[in-house]
């Protein structure tokens, strides 16, 4: 009763969520991990399993009896990491399966595209792994929310650590993947390192489809740069880092300093792909399973028990997003998107792995601690590739909603749909 007047208002005893993750294409493994996390979240929401983070979550609205008493069901779809396919898949979940919320994804392009779709259709979008500033910057939407951190935060968290380790007198050379996420990441890292006194001596855009980066890396040898920043993700990062190491950049001495490589956004799966090459290389990450707070431990415990290996950061953010959505519905007492939006805006919580966190009302971005990590020298297993160097406190990565890197665009108003 009372659930009507919005798209896909649940009528029966169940409510359907749509998990839209890459199942084919280069991010399929990441998507598979996201899906595992979602399945786990559904289990926990429905009161099965050990409850995971429900036990550590600061909000106690969720009862383990589904959402608002309705059992949680889910449908899945394949984004193929293409905006068209992702939108088609999201549409089918909304139009055919009656999904009331869409979540997932492993790239910013897809996140932005699906977010716009959800805005138009009148359902909530809880972004998965998307790191570009634009998701909650230029392209933010009232019906969309992002728990994952972003390029700006990576830059802000990394810069002090880099300064502390490599000094403030450095010359950086950027290789940047030629698409939106690459641009915002380069901009973020540049501005925060330049603020520390670093100089940027070169930036080159590399095609996304590139697999051999040798012709981009050799010019670095001839520049006087002593740091190489790889604004690459996924296969790009694996290949560019591998190539950089092959060309002996890490053994170089420039200006009397050791040459260094930085990878702004790390993911464990990519680290695995790059193998031994990641050792000692700094980067940032949203979350890591070795965190020792209660929330992280509970999540790692239930995920590890179910699947036999620790979760990735993508899995973590997806799991948390699912819970946050359910909690917001529960607190709002309604599935209506606008009610959910209201419940999520300005929501402060804890116990989800990154310390006290705020869902900022102005741009629907979560503000929380950010991890700076480093490739581990002596990994004990194929999952233990990164070690946490520093947990950057949230204050240090917070920015004004109208920060230039996020300027433009507007949330608009929430849309309940039909």
């Amino acid at each position, binding site marked *: 009763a009372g659930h009507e007047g919005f798209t896909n208002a649940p009528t029966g005893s169940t409510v359907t969520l749509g998990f839209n993750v890459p199942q084919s*294409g*280069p991010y*399929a493994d990441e998507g598979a991990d996201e899906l595992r996390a979602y399945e786990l979240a559904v289990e926990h929401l429905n009161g099965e399993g050990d409850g995971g983070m429900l036990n550590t979550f600061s909000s106690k609205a969720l009862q383990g009896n589904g959402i608002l008493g309705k059992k949680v069901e889910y449908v899945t779809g394949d984004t193929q990491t293409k905006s068209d396919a992702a939108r088609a898949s999201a549409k089918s979940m909304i139009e055919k399966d009656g999904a009331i919320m869409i979540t997932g994804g492993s790239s910013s392009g897809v996140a932005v595209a699906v977010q716009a779709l959800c805005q138009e259709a009148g359902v909530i979008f809880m972004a998965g792994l998307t790191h570009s500033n634009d998701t909650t910057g230029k392209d933010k939407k009232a019906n969309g929310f992002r728990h994952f951190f972003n390029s700006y935060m990576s830059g802000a968290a990394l810069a002090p650590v880099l300064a502390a380790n490599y000094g403030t007198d450095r010359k950086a050379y950027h290789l940047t993947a030629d698409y939106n996420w690459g641009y915002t990441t380069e901009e973020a890292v540049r501005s925060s390192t330049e603020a520390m006194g670093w100089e940027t001596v070169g930036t080159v855009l590399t095609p996304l489809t590139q697999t*051999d980066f040798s*012709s981009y890396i050799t010019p670095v040898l*001839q520049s006087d740069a002593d740091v190489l920043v790889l604004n690459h993700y996924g296969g790009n990062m694996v290949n560019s880092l591998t*190539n950089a190491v092959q060309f002996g950049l890490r053994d170089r001495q420039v200006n009397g300093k050791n040459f260094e490589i930085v990878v702004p956004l790390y993911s464990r799966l990519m680290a695995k*792909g790059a193998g031994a090459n990641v050792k000692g290389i700094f980067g940032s990450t949203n979350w890591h399973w070795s965190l020792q707070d209660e929330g992280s431990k509970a999540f790692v415990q239930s995920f590890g028990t179910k699947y036999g290996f620790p979760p990735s950061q993508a899995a973590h953010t997806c799991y948390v997003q699912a819970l946050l959505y359910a909690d917001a519905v529960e607190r709002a007492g309604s599935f209506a998107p606008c009610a959910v939006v209201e419940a999520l805006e300005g929501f402060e919580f804890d116990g989800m792995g990154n310390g006290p966190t705020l869902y900022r009302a102005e741009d629907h971005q979560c503000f929380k601690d950010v991890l700076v990590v480093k490739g581990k020298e002596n990994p004990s297993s194929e*999952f233990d590739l990164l070690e946490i160097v520093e947990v950057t406190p949230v204050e240090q990565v917070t920015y004004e909603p109208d920060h230039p890197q996020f300027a433009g665009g507007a949330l608009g108003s929430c849309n309940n749909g039909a």
Partner: protein
Amino acid sequence: MDAIILQILNGLDKGSAYALIALGLTLIFGTLGVVNFAHGALFMIGAFCAVTLSRLLSLSHEVAIPGQVDFLGNPATRDVPYVYDIFGEAAGAAIIDWSVPLAILLAIPVMIAVGVIMERGLIKHFYKRPHADQILVTFGLAIVLQEIIKYYYGANPIPAPAPQAFVGSFDFGALIGFEPGTIIYPYWRLVYFAFAVVIIGAVFAFLQFTTFGMVVRAGMADRETVGLLGINIDKRFTIMFGLAAAVAGLAGVMYAPITSPNYHMGMDFLVLSFVVVVVGGMGSLPGAVLAGFLLGILESFASMREVLEIVPGLNQIIIYLVAIVILLTRPRGLMGRKGVMED
């Protein structure tokens, strides 16, 4: 100057990769006239031969590490490869280290078998069918092969490093009087280049100094008449296919340390290799090789910062731009033969 030398080196290297992949493709596509969309998959399977061998060699059993726990709090274990047990730790480690070069030995029979089975079981029935049908069937096959690999190995890239002995770079600059450390080149890439030259040379020799090449060319132009002259052309086509698959596979094995293999690497290279073959000219082996090197070098130059500052995005389109220019100025690519796939 040194920048240019470096980019030429890069281009030669990239070019040798393109040339090698295109060489295999041109045997099937340029010579047999089969539009083989599964060629990329063959390259990919080659690369996964390297991955598989290194996995096989690293097959291990668990040994508990006393006093340590894993992330779930269970007793921690350590994996000890069987080769350590068999050959001792030092020799075992060396064998694992050398798994990529060793994989060549594995890849040759595997790829020939794959190629022959593919030809006998499938492609054989498509020589006389329209190119459209060949596209559909080989594309289907490519997807299937790719998905099988994905099923067993996942979608993530899997590192397959070169042996330790090849880690590091060769300092060209120092050799020719530049500042040390400015013109360097990784050993493995040199190996790759040399390997490409050897393979290309071997294939050339085989087709040039035997009548095999002429017969296959004739067979492609007119199967029926060649049969009339008592020649079992089917057998030769099968051999050709096996040869092409082996070339593709070897290209893949050797490429594994340069970029970590993943299941869709074949598709990534596919279109490019078609472009290389066609720009080289249909039916021309030297053309394919030449085009491979040419495009590789041009691509390297287009990715220089100095160039990109003048023409932004040139690196994205250079290959296609060059392809268009060449195809418009030379009707059959660089050295194509008349009548091959012109209708």
